[in-house]
């Protein structure tokens, strides 16, 4: 699948390159320095111009790397990269399988238009925007390729720290207030993450995901309670990142307060939570996890359905367009997690397809919301009659396209994704609830967006003079690129759907994953658990079967 002109060294080091590229770009951008402007200016500063060029070149290169990763993974290659060539369960390992490659490509597909949009002026409203953007990409890419739970935590922190700074980019009291909530909530989630990770380590003696997938089934019934508790703690953490109800209330306030390009980039951040749920709860605690199998199944599906409901009701009640889009993000995460909660390859395949589509649509909608707001004078993005926008046809048709895709109208990919999901749920015990919710969410999304659209474009006040300045071509082209990507997903629906189906099937094949990461020897090897070496009095009586190999 990989074209011959790609050098072998590149494909070999690909898993680490996707992390190193934004890391080095970010460092270079920090060394380049800042334009030194405050919240108002520095538009034409040469340093900013250079930062834009370097940043854009880097994300385009990242897009190329991600495309190579997808081409490689589509052929069935499971690329495991052992950093420093340390053997797998002990050293750091980066893995690119179909799911990781897809998430990398999706990140790049969002990052390129968003950075292009931000270069239209947003990046001048604060300091070090481009460096932080790259750090955020580094965290995202790292979280998608890491093959071990602790490094997932580290990359979560990298992307979160960058997101804290991006969140308050552009400043203003409101942003600092909401930013503080966001940071404090995320720090609590990080603390819980560490608790979950260490509980899991205490019982299995490993944090490598491939190794965990082999060890967790070996934990017998009484001890499995600890492992299950760890799984549920981790569900709280990942559910918080993904905005799974009832932990979704932070999202609309945060995303609505953030600058448009930042909110658009954050659209992929909730998907990191979804990704982690699939990797940890779907695979490690999945169908073959012995006594801990399907630990989160009884809670995940109802909560996902609840998330759909909460999100769409929030969207109906929203007073501003940005808040409406933010609530739609919550509803889309709910829809994705419904598919994940089905715990089968068909549900996951549908879920992954819908995930790719909804991320692009939501990112496009965030950018579009700002384009519309900037042409409505003082009313901005509040949903109330105001002056007509300068470009009603252009913005209106973009809104229509985005709304149709978000609501899942044929022939747009939102429809295909939902159809696949309905099909996957057709024999499920919860079929009635799932079908009702998914179809209801689609309908209410359409109502919510139609209400917003008619208010924004038709209920105009003719007594006030409208603004005449149209949006700059740069901003429009960035938004169009994201919406065009969703249309492309519809055109190439068959190959993409085949890819996500294979990605889901690959996820369920734990043996192959373990073989690629740990090697043939790793399959049978026991993880070292030195503290079990002498049966010391007073120490916890570890009964995990993983402990035989106390070296």
């Amino acid at each position, binding site marked *: 699948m990989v074209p011959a002109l790609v050098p072998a060294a590149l494909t070999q080091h690909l898993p680490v390159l996707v992390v190193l590229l934004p890391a080095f770009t970010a460092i270079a951008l920090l060394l380049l320095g800042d334009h030194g402007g405050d919240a108002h200016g520095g538009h034409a500063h040469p340093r900013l111009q250079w930062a834009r060029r370097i940043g854009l070149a880097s994300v385009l290169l990242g897009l190329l790397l991600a495309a190579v990763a997808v081409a490689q993974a589509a052929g069935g290659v499971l690329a495991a990269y052992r950093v420093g060539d340390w053997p797998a369960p002990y050293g750091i390992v980066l893995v690119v399988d179909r799911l990781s490659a897809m998430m990398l490509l999706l990140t790049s597909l969002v990052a390129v238009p968003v950075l292009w949009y931000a270069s239209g002026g947003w990046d001048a409203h604060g300091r070090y925007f481009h460096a932080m953007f790259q750090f955020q990409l580094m965290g995202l890419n790292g979280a998608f390729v890491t093959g071990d739970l*602790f490094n997932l935590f*580290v990359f979560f*922190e990298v992307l979160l*720290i960058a997101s*804290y700074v991006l969140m*308050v980019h552009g*400043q*203003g*009291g409101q942003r*600092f*207030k909401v*930013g*503080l*909530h966001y*940071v*404090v909530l995320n*720090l*609590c989630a*990080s*603390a819980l993450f*560490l*608790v979950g*990770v*260490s*509980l899991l*380590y*205490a019982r299995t003696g490993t944090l490598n995901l491939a190794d965990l997938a082999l060890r967790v089934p070996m934990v017998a019934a009484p001890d499995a309670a600890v492992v299950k508790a760890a799984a549920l703690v981790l569900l709280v953490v990942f559910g918080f990142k993904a905005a799974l109800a009832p932990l979704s209330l932070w999202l609309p306030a945060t995303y609505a307060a953030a600058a448009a390009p930042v909110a658009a980039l954050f659209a992929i951040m909730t998907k990191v939570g979804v990704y982690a749920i699939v990797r940890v709860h779907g695979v490690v605690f999945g169908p073959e996890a012995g006594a801990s199998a399907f630990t989160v199944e009884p809670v995940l599906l109802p909560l996902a359905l609840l998330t759909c409901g909460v999100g769409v009701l929030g969207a109906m009640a929203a007073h501003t367009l940005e808040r409406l889009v933010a609530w739609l993000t919550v509803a889309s995460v709910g829809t994705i997690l419904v598919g994940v909660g089905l715990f089968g390859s068909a549900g996951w395949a549908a879920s992954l397809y819908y995930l790719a589509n909804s991320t692009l649509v939501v990112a496009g909608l965030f950018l579009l919301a700002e384009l519309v707001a900037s042409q409505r004078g003082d009313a901005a993005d509040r949903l109330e009659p105001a002056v007509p926008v300068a470009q009603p046809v252009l913005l209106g048709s973009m809104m229509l396209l985005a709304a149709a895709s978000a609501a899942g109208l044929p022939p747009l990919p939102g429809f295909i994704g939902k159809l696949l999901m309905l099909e996957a749920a057709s024999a499920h015990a919860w079929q009635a609830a799932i079908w009702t919710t998914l179809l209801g969410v689609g309908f209410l999304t359409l109502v919510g967006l139609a209400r917003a659209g008619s208010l924004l474009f038709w209920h105009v006040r003719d007594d006030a003079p409208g603004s005449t300045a149209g949006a700059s071509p740069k901003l429009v082209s960035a938004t169009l690129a994201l919406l065009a990507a969703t249309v492309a997903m519809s055109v190439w629906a068959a190959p993409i759907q085949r890819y996500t189906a294979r990605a889901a099937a690959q996820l369920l094949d734990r043996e192959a994953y373990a073989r690629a990461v740990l090697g043939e020897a790793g399959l049978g090897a026991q993880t070292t*658990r*030195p*503290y079990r*070496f*002498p049966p*010391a009095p*007073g*120490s*916890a009586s*570890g009964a995990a079967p993983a402990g035989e190999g106390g*070296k």
Partner: protein
Amino acid sequence: MSMEFLVATGIGWIVACGIYLLLRGRTFTVVLGLTLLGYAVNVFIFAMGRLWAGAPPIVIGDGPFADPLPQALVLTAIVIGFATTGFVIELALRSRHDNGSDHVDARPDAAQGAQGAGPAAAGPGTGGGQ
């Protein structure tokens, strides 16, 4: 009383204090709460390698040795916790500067006196309680 019991109750007590501080209405106490929570979690990670006396985290002959991995993990967690605490303090200062209040919801200080000084000041209806 075993060492395990002491450490476990200690962690529990620090978490309880951390959560209490976290739910207060002023950013300063919230930061203190986060710090306490971080300490408790760090000790928790450390304890997940089991508690050992007189066992170095390296292999020396046949003697007992402690698990070095949680110690490495805890180092990473401490570094990250330190960095994020620094950031959250700076953010709290900027929020106070821009909003004129160090309340977590950026309520103006004038509204303080009118509302009761309840002990739990996190709810949307209560004041700072300082």
